[in-house]
């Protein structure tokens, strides 16, 4: 799957989880950029991303990923 496609699908997931149609995520997007992205929503987000791509993050990845770019890296490796 191409990175561009990953980001398109991620965008939809983010918009759905945070109920905000104006969200556009990039490699550098972090929890500081999205108002409702706290540690609770993080888990909801992770679950939604897992469902979207049919993958599972391990908890180490969940707690250590720093931005959306890292999330996309993991997805890219997993769905190869």
């Amino acid at each position, binding site marked *: 799957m191409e990175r561009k496609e990953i980001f398109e699908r991620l965008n939809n997931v983010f918009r759905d989880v945070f*109920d905000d149609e104006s969200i556009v995520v990039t490699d550098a997007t972090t929890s500081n950029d999205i108002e409702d992205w706290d540690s609770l929503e993080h*888990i909801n987000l992770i679950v939604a991303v897992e469902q979207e791509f049919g993958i599972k993050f391990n908890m*180490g990845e969940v707690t250590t990923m720093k931005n959306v770019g890292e999330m996309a890296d993991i997805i890219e490796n997993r769905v190869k």
Partner: protein
Amino acid sequence: MVLTSLIFLTFSIITLIIYFVIPKKLQWIVLLASSLTFLFYNALTVNNVIYVLIILLSAYFGALLVHKYENTKKSKIFLVLSIIIILGELLILKYSNLFIVSANHFNNLFHINKQFNMVSFSSPVGLSYYSLIMIGYIVDVYRKICNPQKNILKCALFMSYFPILTSGPFIRYDKMEKELYTKHKLNYDNLCRGLIRIFWGLFKILVISQRLAIFVNTVYGDISTFNGTYIIIATIFFTLQLYTNFSGSIDIIMGISKIMGIELPENFTSPFFSRTITEFWRNWHITLGAWLKDYIFYPLMKSNFIQKIGNFFKKIFGKKVSKKITLYLSMLIMWILIGIWHGGAYTYIIGSGLLQFFFIFLEDLFGPLSQNINKKIGINTEAFSYKLYQCIRTFILFSFSMIFFRATSVGNAIDIIKHIFVYNPWVLVDNSSLYTAGLDLLDFRVLIISLIAMFIVEGMQRKENVLDKLFRQNIVFRWAIIYLLIFSVIIFGMYGPGYDPATFIYRGF
């Protein structure tokens, strides 16, 4: 070994001296030897050695096997197996009576004619800390956050590092690896900071907490004599007693570690300045909260069980409501576990579990509503007076829940609450009444001044590190503050019944 005892002082000094004179390669071995001494100081019995070894060996081999078979099914099997062994030991040694009491209640309820007898196991010191710490370690290896420790003695040091055995904080292997096994030089700055922190802890425990304890024990010990206003004061005092004792112990622990150059995670950040119970728990026993979040709450929220419940309610109530339902359910489970961890009795499950959940639940449910109302009627929620009101409200709610925490049984707690409603506020103004509960006028003065000093320091600590600030002051002022702290501990500290230096020095005049 109590942290404020002479024996612990001697023990720590000896450890520190050997730690710094021995070749640096051997420093961690000194720590291990001290830790094992501490671990078995109270009771070197065959049982205790076996209990400790079970946890050490399960964690050590568990982590190695989890790592060896990573990315395979076997890895998960070894993870689950080692957790079951450690958790099983913790549950049996610490919480058997909770199950027995529950079973007896159940039997009574259904008229089953069988009652189990309570059991009593002697559990080794620190069990409820290092069993969770070691579970965290194995899970971190499984999650590839850290590599397993191959040297079993080093693994034993991580598990038994003596300062944290009595009151935490919870430590993580990936953070402690560098701290525990690397070579440390004695450094003047660390020595000063460590010593001041130790004295600050001693001040909180010996000057404040021990004094408050006298009043609390007297009042809670005889609530029909000391009712109404006495109980209100004792309840406030107990919250402060608990905090000064617990956070004071952490100060001593962090101080000793600091001298050795070992940094530990903070466990308290001025919790009484919190505006809500939710915020309070982010500042109180932080490392327990973090442990539960990473190893219970997150996995729980991610679990198929919770997700299925979420999906079920999503169809009925929509996304927003179903999110809240799964959140509250996970929180409820977590708070019950926090209650159980604090001690295997219903008083803890209610006091430090269910009530906290209930407060946070209400805050989350009605928070947005009260924000709207405040906006509509034009209340400035950022004004000092409003913040103060919120802090006081948080303190009162927490103190109320601590009635259960302190009570000997749930019935006792309800009894205490009933006795609050005796109207006798005149004990506050009537000169002698207040001084019949174990503390006299001088004690109250010492308490009030010490508490004010503590709150000022904590208020400052929220903005910047108070020690950094102190070290920037000129030499005279700096040492005046340090001497004031040291002599306050020496003169006003309560070292136990029959030895009260304040009576000794002060009242001789």
